[in-house]
């Protein structure tokens, strides 16, 4: 155990990328926030092999052989089993109204949905939420920390990795069922989730130039969305409109059609198109 830990620490040190000196590269390096990228990429290669040989075929087989209705029931049970962790995290985030909804939902599905086999609460329009301790830490103000590629679990970061460990320790079910049952549940969760994204993930891999970097970006954006509970969060940077378009449009000079419109063709700055859009 200690040997493994030591080996892992050694791997981390060996895998540290040296920050580049060049300002452009430096900026890109900081934005990627992935100081142990070489190690992460090694783990990613391992995960890819694991996925190719085991997880994806299992997910494919699961989807091909188990009928839709049965898979829906399996998912309902898995989601019901997750509800206590979500409930606890909603309390920790101080989101009491959501916690109440999650609690009610759990009760309804346990009682009327035959122990969670059927999503009765969903039929009554009760929303399902999913929260984890990584999100709770984010709500408490913790930054994500460096990007981490976890073996098997995949993309993560220091904050979410801690959250993952904390959730598995805090999950009350873990104390009532034998380890094998917990492990089986995790495996089933993995297969079920993987089965949902077979085609999209194939497409992303096929069309991206750097699959690792694309997944890193997608993971970060998805997590921010989950942390913000689907609300549009930060101000995303946007491409500044190129003025080619304005020049193309010369037959209909905007200044002549609406007052206060004066996009100067010499400024590609983001402010120029705004003048074409009066806000009131």
């Amino acid at each position: 155990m200690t040997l493994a830990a030591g080996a892992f620490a050694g791997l981390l040190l060996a895998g540290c990328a040296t920050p580049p000196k060049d300002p452009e590269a430096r900026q890109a390096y900081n934005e990627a926030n992935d100081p142990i990228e070489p190690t992460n990429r090694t783990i990613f290669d391992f995960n890819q092999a694991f996925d190719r040989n085991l997880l994806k075929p299992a997910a494919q087989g699961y989807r091909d052989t188990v009928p839709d209705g049965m898979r829906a029931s399996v998912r309902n049970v898995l989601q019901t089993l997750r509800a206590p962790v979500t409930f606890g995290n909603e309390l920790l985030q101080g989101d009491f109204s959501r916690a109440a909804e999650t609690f009610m939902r759990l009760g309804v599905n346990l009682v009327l949905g035959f122990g969670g086999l059927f999503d009765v609460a969903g039929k009554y329009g009760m929303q399902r939420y999913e929260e984890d301790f990584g999100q709770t830490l984010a709500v408490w103000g913790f930054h994500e920390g460096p990007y981490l590629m976890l073996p098997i679990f995949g993309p993560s970061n220091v904050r979410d990795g801690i959250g993952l460990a904390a959730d598995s320790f805090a999950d009350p079910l873990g104390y009532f069922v034998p380890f094998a049952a917990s492990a089986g549940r995790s495996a089933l969760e993995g297969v079920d989730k993987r089965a949902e994204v077979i085609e999209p993930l194939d497409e992303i891999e096929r069309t991206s130039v750097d699959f690792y970097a694309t997944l890193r970006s997608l993971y970060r954006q998805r997590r921010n969305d989950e942390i913000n509970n689907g609300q549009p969060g930060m101000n995303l940077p946007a491409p500044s409109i190129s003025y080619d378009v304005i020049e193309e449009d010369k037959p209909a000079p905007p200044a002549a059609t609406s007052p206060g419109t004066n996009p100067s063709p010499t400024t590609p700055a983001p402010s120029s198109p705004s003048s074409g859009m009066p806000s009131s």
Partner: protein
Amino acid sequence: MRSLSKRSFLVSLVALPILAYAPLGTAAAGPVDDGARQFVQVLADRAVGVLQSKAPKPQRDQEFAQILNDGFDVRAIAQFCLSSYWNKATEQERQEYLKLFHDLIVQTYSARLGSVYHGEKLEIGPARPDGTQGVWVSSKILTTKPENEPIKIDWRVRQPSAKNYRIVDVVVTNVSMVITQRDDFVGILQRNGGNIPEFLGLLRDKVNKLQTS
């Protein structure tokens, strides 16, 4: 359980006029926003038309390219995706990059949309201002399975001139397609020490592979 208490009845009495007024409030923001919404609607209808036509791949790619050029500020997006490396590229490198970028986007979205589209409907929602620079047009994809939640898509629209709209980003469930593309490219350039010719080589290989597959 769902009986309307006196209190919630009163609440709804107060809330209803406000709710009824709210759409008027956004509509009052002007015909500009409606123009942007219509623009997205027309563009989406065209894309759905291409997806449903089941045309052979070369023809479909060409129609997608047309939609892309009519609806998006491709040059602005391309420049953004190269981040600060754009400034380092020579004019010749920029020209090649712009061409490859255009082809990559056509291939990517023609394939991605084609593989996931099963007759879903796009419902255009309200527009909201995007700072002072333009508007976000919200929309939802209603999936064919009722148990699946609708997928939220936001279109970042600019209006370079009175009769012209251009999309500069498409954000799916708060994931920006443009930022994802930028991070893909910058991931390579940051690792290879900003070697633009090598990057263009990788991009060329990718585009070739996608065009022939």
